[in-house]
């Protein structure tokens, strides 16, 4: 939505060119982010984005029961919750445990999930689509802690009906059942087969290439080596390490020949028959299908670990996949930018270097005219009413800059020209202006003077920053319009050529100077005149690019018909 303003992260630019791509290119949007999505590395003095930071898992948890899963059990449990958390095979909503035999409440209503303690056996019930696990023959004897209960899995396929009674010492038994799938066993065997080879071949390369990080602690040598092997064998794929270095890759290729031949346990063709009964059976199934609803949608099947039936009626509940908390590091210097607290549901961070704490926050909007004010209904959030008009020389807009630093800063804006004379030109105050320091006390507290500054009230202030006068001598629109607390509002104008249609979107370089936190060595200089001391506080400048999108241009006729 427009108007908006986004910040540039240079990580996608090819050279070390810091200039962003022209905003006319659709692809330029990939390089721009909202300020609150960006990080700031103090070490490199640079903005980082989610695309370029390196990510490490710092903890796993189930998004449903919120249990924090120790990373040691994550692999064993195949990245899914091993407690009582299942999602509906039809709609993916979370399933509830309900009694199959609810006490009669006299209303004659069917099973409802409201009666958590009724008579067993219990079943999994979908509160959204009303699917329940008896449809695939899964019931159990106790409602809570599926651990220690007995599952009856009636396994129905078009070829045979099998009743499997599994004595469960824990819910993980359902997973054990998954693990006994032929594909799973085959995969384990393959891993075993390659493990020794990968271990020897990776010792030389991966040990010095992989920095010892928490993420890699629990990955097996096979996984690490596989990653190393992938990056070695496929040019252009770099391993999960943003600081890629050259590595010697040729010397190990010879080892490949020494590998023993692998014999599959199962004929290749047989795999197709495991879940659904094979190709012929699939064809037969489709031949007999009367409505498309009998066939499971792709969306319902692709979350499964192994091949499942094509029939909607045979889909089984899925254990819920785990989520992770992540730490983020600077790709260049490896310093930590984000480090969450260990507790899964905590929203606090031990380290959080958000760009919003370093860079001024810019927001763009259109001045609120009296007409717009009148048009607003009570309690209705106003739409921004400004629209750029073609053939108009003074389309006005405003940029509000908020200083997050405890010292005042000097800001300088440099909008970049994007089009020739037949496009649009942007006027903004080009001379530096100041923004007050941030103080906790500025937190809004019912300060009613904060808004409602009418255009004519601003006349006094405008005189300072603006450049030239309008032909009719009205108040100027370009310049510093308002200063309060740690916010400065500047006005700008856009001249749109009569023939221009499209977005008014331009890149803008923002430079700001701030007092550095470093101690000032000259402070104690005895002989220095006081004026020199005042000048000495170390001042630093930081620049970053933004893209300003003021929205589409309308012709006058369009706007009148609105």
């Amino acid at each position: 939505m427009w108007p908006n303003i986004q910040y540039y992260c240079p990580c996608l630019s090819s050279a070390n060119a810091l200039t962003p791509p022209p905003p006319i290119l659709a692809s330029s949007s990939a390089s721009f982010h909202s300020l609150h999505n960006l990080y700031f590395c103090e070490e490199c003095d640079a903005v980082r984005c989610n695309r370029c930071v390196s990510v490490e898992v710092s903890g796993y948890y189930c998004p449903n029961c919120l249990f924090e899963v120790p990373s040691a059990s994550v692999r064993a449990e195949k990245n899914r919750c091993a407690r009582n958390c299942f999602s509906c095979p039809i709609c993916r909503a979370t399933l509830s445990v309900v009694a199959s035999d609810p006490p009669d409440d006299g209303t004659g209503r069917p099973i409802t999930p409201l009666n958590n303690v009724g008579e067993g056996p219990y079943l999994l019930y979908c509160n959204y689509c009303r699917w329940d696990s008896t449809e695939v023959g899964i019931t159990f004897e106790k409602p809570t802690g599926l651990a220690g209960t007995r599952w009856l899995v009636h396994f129905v396929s078009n070829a045979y009906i099998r009743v499997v009674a599994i004595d469960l010492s824990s819910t993980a038994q359902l997973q054990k059942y998954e693990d006994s799938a032929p594909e799973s066993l085959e995969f384990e065997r393959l891993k075993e087969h390659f493990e020794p080879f990968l271990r020897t071949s990776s010792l030389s390369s991966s040990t010095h290439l992989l920095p010892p990080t928490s993420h890699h602690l629990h990955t097996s040598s096979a996984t690490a080596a596989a990653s190393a092997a992938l990056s070695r064998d496929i040019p252009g794929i770099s391993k999960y390490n943003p600081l890629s270095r050259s590595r010697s890759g040729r010397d190990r290729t010879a080892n490949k020949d020494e590998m023993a031949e692998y014999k599959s346990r199962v004929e290749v063709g047989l795999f197709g028959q495991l879940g659904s009964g094979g190709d012929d059976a699939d064809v037969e199934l489709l031949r007999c299908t009367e409505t498309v609803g009998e066939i499971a949608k792709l969306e319902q099947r692709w979350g499964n670990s192994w091949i499942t039936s094509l029939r909607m009626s045979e889909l089984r509940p899925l254990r819920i996949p785990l989520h992770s908390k992540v730490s983020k590091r600077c790709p260049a210097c490896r310093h930590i930018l984000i480090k969450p607290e260990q507790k899964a549901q905590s929203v606090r961070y031990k380290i959080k270097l958000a760009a919003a704490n370093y860079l001024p926050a810019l927001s763009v909007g259109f001045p609120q005219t009296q007409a717009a004010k009148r048009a607003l209904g009570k309690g209705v959030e106003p739409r921004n009413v400004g629209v750029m008009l073609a053939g108009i020389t003074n389309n006005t807009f405003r940029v509000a800059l908020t200083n997050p630093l405890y010292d005042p800063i000097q800001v300088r804006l440099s909008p970049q020209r994007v089009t020739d004379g037949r496009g649009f030109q942007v006027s903004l105050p080009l001379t530096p202006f100041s923004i007050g320091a941030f103080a906790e006390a500025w937190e809004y507290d019912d300060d009613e003077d904060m808004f409602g500054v009418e255009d004519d009230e601003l006349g006094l202030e405008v005189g300072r920053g603006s450049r030239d006068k309008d032909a009719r001598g009205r108040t100027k629109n370009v310049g510093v319009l308002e200063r309060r607390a740690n916010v400065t509002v500047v006005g700008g104008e856009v001249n749109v050529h009569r023939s221009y249609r499209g977005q008014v979107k331009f890149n803008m370089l923002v430079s700001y100077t701030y007092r550095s936190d470093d101690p000032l060595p000259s402070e104690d200089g005895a002989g220095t005149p006081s004026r020199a001391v005042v000048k000495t506080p170390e001042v630093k400048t930081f620049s970053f690019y933004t893209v300003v999108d003021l929205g589409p241009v309308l012709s006058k006729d369009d706007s009148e018909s609105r």
Partner: protein
Amino acid sequence: MDTPIYYSKTEFIETDTGNKVSRRATIAGPQNIILGGKTIISSGAIIRGDLRRTGPGHAVVISLGRYCLVGEGCVIRPPYKTYRGNFNYYPMKIGDHVHIGANTVVEAATIGNHVVIGKNCIIGKFTIIKDCAQVADNTVIPPNTVVPALALFSGSPGRFVEDLPESTQELVESQTKHYYTRFQPLDR
């Protein structure tokens, strides 16, 4: 930017703690409802504080924290279930800085702090929404769902879409405070 959101001065009652409650909202059982302060209840909203647990005495049915917004036409109703044969309502707790969009129906058990719920949503019975989570417009969250911290849920049924940025808490806090300051009376 700082464009005010005007409301008619005669329509809203402002409490000592800065809550602004529309006269066109239905507040049933107000003695069972707690508003934390600087919370806005928009016109047409229905808050069912009267649906309280059976038994003697006075009980908090619905509590809302500071800087909350209950949008126009929202229904806030405590969840209920029959447990051991007894039908009962259960209290609902909503944290600070929680915005609920217009025409959304909420029957959650708990909603944490800094939560944003879109418009036209249904938040099913006994749903638990953790801190800094968000629910997109037009989402249906089935009963008993857990929405983890910093997660965005969307769709019907509502499902996890993505993790929200680390700065969500600050962002939502400043947005909700800002909204309250922009919410200004217009004499008419």
